[in-house]
C-alpha cells in the first residue's frame, strides 16, 4: 500500500489531485503531500462501450472513490465487476500517466 501523492494549498489546505495554477482561495503556493490511498466507493459504472484502446478490456468498472483523506478520485476497479457503493478500496497510482486503479479490499 503506497501513499498517494497530491498537492495541498499552503494557504487554505485544500487538496488537489492535479495541481492548478491558482487554488479557489487565490493562493499559488502548493506543497506535495502524501495521503493514505484508502477510501470508499461513492458511485460506479460498468463500461460496455469503450474507445478502441479499451475495447478489449470491456466490460470494466470505474468508480468514484471518496478518499479517507478528503478528495475524490476516479479510478478503474481492477479486480472484478462486483463492487458496491460503500465498498472500501485501496487506490494505487500506476505509471507516470495519471492512472488510478482501485483494488477492492474485500475480495
Amino acid at each position, binding site marked *: 500500500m503506497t501513499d498517494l501523492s497530491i498537492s495541498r494549498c499552503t494557504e487554505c489546505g485544500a487538496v488537489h489531485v*492535479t495541481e492548478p495554477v491558482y487554488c479557489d482561495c487565490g493562493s499559488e503556493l502548493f506543497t506535495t503531500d502524501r495521503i493514505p490511498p484508502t477510501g470508499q466507493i461513492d458511485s460506479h*459504472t460498468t463500461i460496455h462501450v469503450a474507445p478502441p484502446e479499451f475495447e478489449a478490456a470491456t466490460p470494466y468498472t*470505474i468508480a468514484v472513490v471518496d478518499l479517507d483523506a478528503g478528495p475524490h478520485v476516479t479510478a478503474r476497479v481492477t479486480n472484478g465487476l462486483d463492487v458496491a457503493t460503500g465498498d472500501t478500496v485501496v487506490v494505487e497510482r500506476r505509471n507516470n500517466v495519471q492512472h488510478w486503479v482501485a483494488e477492492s479490499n474485500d475480495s
Partner: protein
Amino acid sequence: MSHSVSVIGVGATRFGERDPPLLDLAAEASHEAIEDAGIGRDEIDSVIIGNVGSAVFSEQATLSGHVVRGLGLHDIPAETVENACSSSSVALRNACTRIAGGAADVVLVVGVEKMTDASTADATRMMSSGYRDIERSIGMTFPGFFGVLMRRYMDAYDVDRETFAQVAVNSHANAQSNPIAQYRDPVTVDEVLNSPPVADPLRLLDCSPMSDGAAAVVLCRAERATEFVADPIDVTASAQTSGYSTLAELFDSEDPTTLRPTVTAAESAYKQAGIGPDAVDLVELHDCFTPAAFIDLEDLGFVPKGTAPDALIEGQTTVEGKIPVNPSGGLLSRGHPIGATGAAQVYEVVKQLRGTAPSQVPNATRAMTHTMGGVSSVAVVHLLQQRGVER
C-alpha cells in the same frame, strides 16, 4: 450601449444517419433559416458556427469559411465555437452579445455535426477527449459520467430503474410527430430495460444516439426585427457558466446530483428576464441520458431536488402538463448531433412560440432552452418569448 435581440428565422435538417456531407447539412439548415427570416443573405453581418468534432468525425475543419462561401458571402466575420455539447448554444449567446454590443445587426448561427461516419468506438473516443487526461486515461466514457450520476441519484432518492426508462418512453412519444426527429417509433419500458448495456446502469435506449444534422437560427437587433418578420421571437435572457474539470471534482461538491453550472446559468437567466420558473411554458433541456432529464429539471428550478421522477410519473412533463419537457423528443429521440443541439432547441421553441410546432404546447408564450457539456464543464440557458408578452 445594449440592444435587445430577436430570432427572426430558423431552419433544420432531418436528424439521423444522413448521407449528405457535413457542409451540405449546414447549407440546408442555413438556407431554410434565411428563407424563414425573409432576409436577403447580404443582410447577414456575421456567421457563428457551433461544432465539436468535424476535424475528427468528418476530416473537415475551418467550417466558418466554407459555410460563408457556400452562402455566396465575403468580408464578414465568421468563426466556429467549440464548447462540447453546448457549442451552438454558446454560438447563439455570442450572437446575442455581438448584437447587444452593436457590432452586428443580423447574425446567422449554424450548429452542425456529422457523427455517424465514425465507428461507435471511434466516436466514443472522440467524445472521451472531453475528459481530462487523468480520467480519460483510465477508460472513462461520456455515458460513464451519467452512469455514475444515475447510480448516485438512484441511491440518494430511492428511484427505481423503470422510472428512468420512462423518460425515454416519453421522449420517443413526443418525437413521433416531429419530422426532423431521428427516432419516431414508440418504445416501451421493457425495450429500454432490455436494450444492450452501455455504461451500467445506462442501457442503449437511455442514451441519445449518434446523429448527423444541422440547425440554423437568424438573430437580429430587436428594433429591426419587424422590418423582416411580423412575429419575431424575443430573446429575454442568455446565460452561460463554467463548471467542473473532472468527475471527481464534481463529487467533491456538496451534492453531485446537482450540476452547479446549470443552477447558476438558470439563476442568471431568470434574473435577466425578470421572471421565475413558473412563468416558463415549456423547456427544451439537455437530456443526453435519461438521468440528465431529472437532474436538469431540478437544477433549472422547475421542481425541488429529488422530485423530478415524481413530476414525470404525475404527467407534469408531458406536452399537456404543468411544465412540458422536450416536446421535440429532446436529445434522446430528436437526436444529438452534438454541435447542432443548442440551435435545434431554439428551432423547436421558436416553432412552439409561433404556435406551429408538430407537438404543440397549448398557449406557449415563454420557453427555455438548456444545454450542458463536458463533465458539467459548461451550461447555457436561453429564455425566449413571443413579442408583446408582458415581461
